[in-house]
């Protein structure tokens, strides 16, 4: 049994322990590029003030730790830290300077979201880079907006909040929490492996390019194969 004051104290102790653990992980895995105090080096930007959300996104999607700082863009890859370790890292980086916190399920969950409004917001704010239903698209000089299919809603929320790499941020001051919730709900409807595609195979959801290819190769190609059969001479009886 703890008295409320004890509980607060215990939380604080737990918190500082977490930060301590995070610092250890940071020193081993991150400091070489981002500097020992997160102040940044020529190989990596400063992490002061990026907040826990940024760490959770970057490390939670495997973008960090990066293999190189020279690539046009860091791809998502296998996550090498456990969620507990990521939380410790996030807590440490958050302690360096105030920044956006990791969103809670309540913030990005589907309850109370307006899917249609989310679609409209998505088309206004996101589709220009990520395509109508979040299939991704090209940016300049080899950079790209990645596909959003089956990305964890939490990570989508964090990306909007923090603007990783070249993605601009959409802070709560210009895109409300409700806006973000709506957008995530829309993506959950149209861009998961369970999303409906009433017309049949969605052909990558890329629009006329993949449709044109399919039309040429399977449509016209199939019909030409049929035409070859129609026009071919029937086999002659063997001369005996």
């Amino acid at each position: 049994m703890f008295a409320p004051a004890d509980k607060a104290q215990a939380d604080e102790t737990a918190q500082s322990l977490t930060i301590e653990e995070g610092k250890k992980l940071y020193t081993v895995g991150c400091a070489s590029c981002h500097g020992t105090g997160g102040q940044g080096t020529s190989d990596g930007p400063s992490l002061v003030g990026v907040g826990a959300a940024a760490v959770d996104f970057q490390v939670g999607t495997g973008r960090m730790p990066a293999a190189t700082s020279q690539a046009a863009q860091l791809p998502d890859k296998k996550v090498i830290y456990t969620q507990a370790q990521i939380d410790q890292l996030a807590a440490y980086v958050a302690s360096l300077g105030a920044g956006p916190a990791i969103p809670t399920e309540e913030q990005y969950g589907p309850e109370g979201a307006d899917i249609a409004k989310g679609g409209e917001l998505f088309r206004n704010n996101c589709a220009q880079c990520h395509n109508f239903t979040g299939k991704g698209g090209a940016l300049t000089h080899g950079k790209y907006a990645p596909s959003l299919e089956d990305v964890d809603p939490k990570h989508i929320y964090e990306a909007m909040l923090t603007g990783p790499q070249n993605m601009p941020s959409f802070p709560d001051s210009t895109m409300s929490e409700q806006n973000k919730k709506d957008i995530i709900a829309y993506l959950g409807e149209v861009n998961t492996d369970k999303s409906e595609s009433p017309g049949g195979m969605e052909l990558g959801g890329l629009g006329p390019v993949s449709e044109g290819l399919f039309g040429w190769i399977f449509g016209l190609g199939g019909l030409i194969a049929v035409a070859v059969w129609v026009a071919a001479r029937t086999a002659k009886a063997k001369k005996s």
Partner: protein
Amino acid sequence: MSTNTSTEPRSRGKAPAGERVADWADGRLGIYSLAKANMRKIFPDHWSFMLGEICLYSFIIIILTGVYLTLFFHPSMNEVEYHGSYIPMQGQLMSEAYASTLEISFDVRGGLLIRQIHHWAAVIFLAGMFVHMMRVFFTGAFRKPREINWLFGFLLFVLGMFTGFTGYSLPDDLLSGTGVRFTQGAILSVPIVGTYISMFLFGGEFPGTDFVARFYSIHILLLPGIMLGLVVAHLILVFYHKHTQFAGAGRTNKNVVGMPLLPVYMGKAGGFFFLVFGFTALIAGIASINPIWNLGPYRPDMVSTGAQPDWYMGFAEGLVRAMPGWEINFWGHTLVLGVFIPLVLFGLFLAILALYPFIESWITGDKREHHILDRPRNAPTRTAFGVAWVTAYMIMLIGGGNDIVATHFNLSINAVTWFVRIGFFVGPVVAFVVTKRICLGLQRRDKDKVLHGRESGIIKRLPHGEFIEVHEPLSQEQMYTLTAHEQYKPAEIGPEVDENGVKRKVKGSEKLRAKLSEAYYGEESQIPKPTVEEYKEITSGHGHH
């Protein structure tokens, strides 16, 4: 009828019902004379001769499904709030056109299928016309007397592009709206009259509230009406000219060998219609096309990446994407070359192909009829030119999808654009040279086959120990086929002194033609056919080596 004085006693009253109906119709329409010429008309068999049928049948499918769609589509840009059955659009503002397309897709039973058949058939129609046109081009089927029919076909292709484009724009979705915006921007680039055309076409500023209704009448009435007329004319000419055929034993420029319309081609061509329709319906059942519910209603301030037109406008899109942004300002006016040059190139690029038959016939000076098709290798310069044209077209098609290419092959979009910019000029030249060499190589091989026979794959050891491969002589049929093609001699500039000894001026056009003729038919552009003398010398000599 009562004064039938024919010596042959006719008892029409007792004829079978079908005959009586036919007699009745003949008395009014003269169908027997038509049938006499056409009922047993001969069509040669070759799969590539059915490409045009694919086009014809997809056109019919498009008309049938299109009529169905008009029953449900509302060509109106009135803004409505959506409250239909598609959840992710609830409460969204959209035009009636978009809302009714959603209704066709989600509430009309079978509406989605018909929409998808309509759109897939359009994609196949244009692809079919492209391949059909290439078949005609590479086999020289456009030569006299078929130049006019080539133009009809060309017009059908171009009108098909615009019919497709206007149809694609009708649902007023975010993707097609972006395409319409592009069109409007391109119209604005036209010097002097651009802004006026734009205002008149859109009933004011873009997007206005008129273009869907206007595109609708263009899409369902004006363009298809013209196309229907052209299709009929195209077919009448095909019947009238009788189909071309490939060279072969018994096939001459004065006959046509094949199967009769009744019954074989009734069965094959009639059956092929059902095959094409059935195949398109299957595709529409399993593959989604233009899922407008994902695209959202059009808003001029929204856009999605991967904004492409349907494939047949892709090369125009590529031209626009590859063009550098040139703009000239002078005396208070702007010449928007960055948009206007691609617009002009688009027309020129197609026009070259349309005019090609006339250019070639001017170079050859040949005024005879041609009903035997060329094998592409036997017309190396024409074939090389065609391949160069297709190469430029394909490079622009890649350019039109440069963003998709970039993301799927992990390339930089800037690098892809530069590849397209350079490729547009270099690609066709390389393609021309390579194709011509391949054609000449194939001609040489044909010549070898005729003179030395076919490689049999059988290795024989000669008495003195040498191994040789036995060459089997070709059958007479094969030899005829391989030597049946005609070879032109290059035209020369006529004598510079006329019959009265007066020196005449050699016109520039004459010199140009002599040069082109040399390029087409000079020593470097064709391998002389084997002659009888060569053949005799080899066959009477030391056996087949």
